[in-house]
């Protein structure tokens, strides 16, 4: 009677691929694992599949340039419209669903600010000090000052908002909003970013994998968001930014895009991005 082979049968391509995704039943998963452990050839096949899957997963999740909506009446003709004004209905809902709720929680919960100064931020992130111009919110906001900023805004609904949900985690959302869609070039812009469902409790943007950019004609300025942890545990970043102090190039007035990019700090490589249009007016 022939003895059992010591190494299980070489897995098929689809078994290796499903093994990578943990989509085999327990016995098949164990069989493939045992084979791969003793077979360099299949280890290389598996590594190749993993590399390919990771390359596809590394494609950035892009933000649609338009807002999706439904017509007021069924079957009514509908058409596209710029995010700025048709988006207002969705924005209002966003505010109701995500913004006000968290801001009210924040206002009433005695939040703790743990972010360092912008100088410390730059020291921790030397790569961000080169190649991209960076701007900090109003000078060195202390914890109490930041608290006051967020407390003050709690009663003011954001009017320019965008929310992106993590397709792999229903409780994780990136919420970006500003207090206006249009500012004077001499004005101040208030930005709030909520990292709902973050696996990290850090109020440091680098730890969270969070970047914020203001882009005009393909030229970006990195804004340094400072953070607090809200009463419900949601890291919230942002601040007031003095627009005259931003190192913007060319005519400062024009249409900008403010984009928050969150590389979720769980090792998955998942990237969430939210963007809002911002207009600067004046000279």
């Amino acid at each position, binding site marked *: 009677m022939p003895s059992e082979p010591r190494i299980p049968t070489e897995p098929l391509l689809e078994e290796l691929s499903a093994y990578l995704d943990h989509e085999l039943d327990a016995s098949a998963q164990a069989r493939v694992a045992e084979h791969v452990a003793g077979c360099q050839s299949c280890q290389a096949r598996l590594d190749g599949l993993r590399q390919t899957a990771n390359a596809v997963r590394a494609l950035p999740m892009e933000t649609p340039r338009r807002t999706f909506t439904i017509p007021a009446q069924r079957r009514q003709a509908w058409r596209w419209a710029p995010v700025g004004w048709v988006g207002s209905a969705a924005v209002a809902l966003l505010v109701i669903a995500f913004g006000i709720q968290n801001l009210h929680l924040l206002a009433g919960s005695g939040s703790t600010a743990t972010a360092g100064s912008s100088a410390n931020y730059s020291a921790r992130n030397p790569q961000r000090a080169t190649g991209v111009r960076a701007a900090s919110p109003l000078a060195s906001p202390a914890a109490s000052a930041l608290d006051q900023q967020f407390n003050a805004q709690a009663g003011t609904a954001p009017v320019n908002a965008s929310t992106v949900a993590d397709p*792999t985690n229903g409780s994780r959302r990136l919420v970006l909003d500003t207090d206006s869609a249009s500012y004077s070039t001499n004005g101040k812009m208030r930005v709030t970013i909520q990292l709902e469902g973050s696996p990290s409790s850090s109020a440091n943007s680098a730890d969270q994998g969070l970047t914020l950019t203001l882009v005009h004609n393909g030229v*970006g300025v990195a804004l340094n968001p400072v953070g607090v942890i809200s009463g419900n545990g949601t890291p919230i970043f942002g601040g007031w930014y003095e627009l005259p102090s931003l190192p913007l190039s060319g005519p400062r007035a024009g249409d900008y895009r403010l984009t928050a990019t969150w590389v979720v700090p769980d090792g998955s490589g998942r990237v969430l991005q939210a963007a809002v249009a911002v207009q600067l007016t004046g000279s």
Partner: protein
Amino acid sequence: MDDRDLVGLARGGDQEAFTQLIVQYQVPLYNMALRMVGGPDDAADIAQEAFLRAWEKIRTLRDAPFKSWLFQIAANLCYDHFRRGRRYGVMPEEDQTGNVVGLGIATPDPQERAEANERNRLVRQSIEALEHDMRIAIVLRDVNGMAYDEIASVLRVPLGTVKSRIARARAQVQERLRQHPDLFPSPSTREDAHAE
């Protein structure tokens, strides 16, 4: 409030509840369409049409998960798009990263950024080259992060078919990426280099 609650309200005509569903799914749905048809305008058209049809048909949705049902509608629209022959298989060379400039911040070195952009371009091209059934399988899995049974539900095919399509798609993408060893070195090559 979860999907089931929102769907329940939307079935009763609550547009605000449906708008919350749009907010929740607009980015993943748009990205699925984008990776399927290539052009951002076509992808946005498909996403909008999918939401509109979902709104119009939401009263017919019973126990099925809203997400699978919505993606099923969008997948059908992608196939309609291919059947109509609009920009079939064309991946415009226009800047598809226009909305993701912020990512450059993570790799500010110009050479690293250029390489990352080139890697992404090659991956997009490799996906584009796949036959539609394989393309949608790998997109739902590796772009949208869906489980196999969820993909089977969206595509209305057996689980074994999902496994097979994802595996074949990955193998074909891998074969194309291997033609650029400078950007996609084989794992064994990288290990050798590391050992040295």
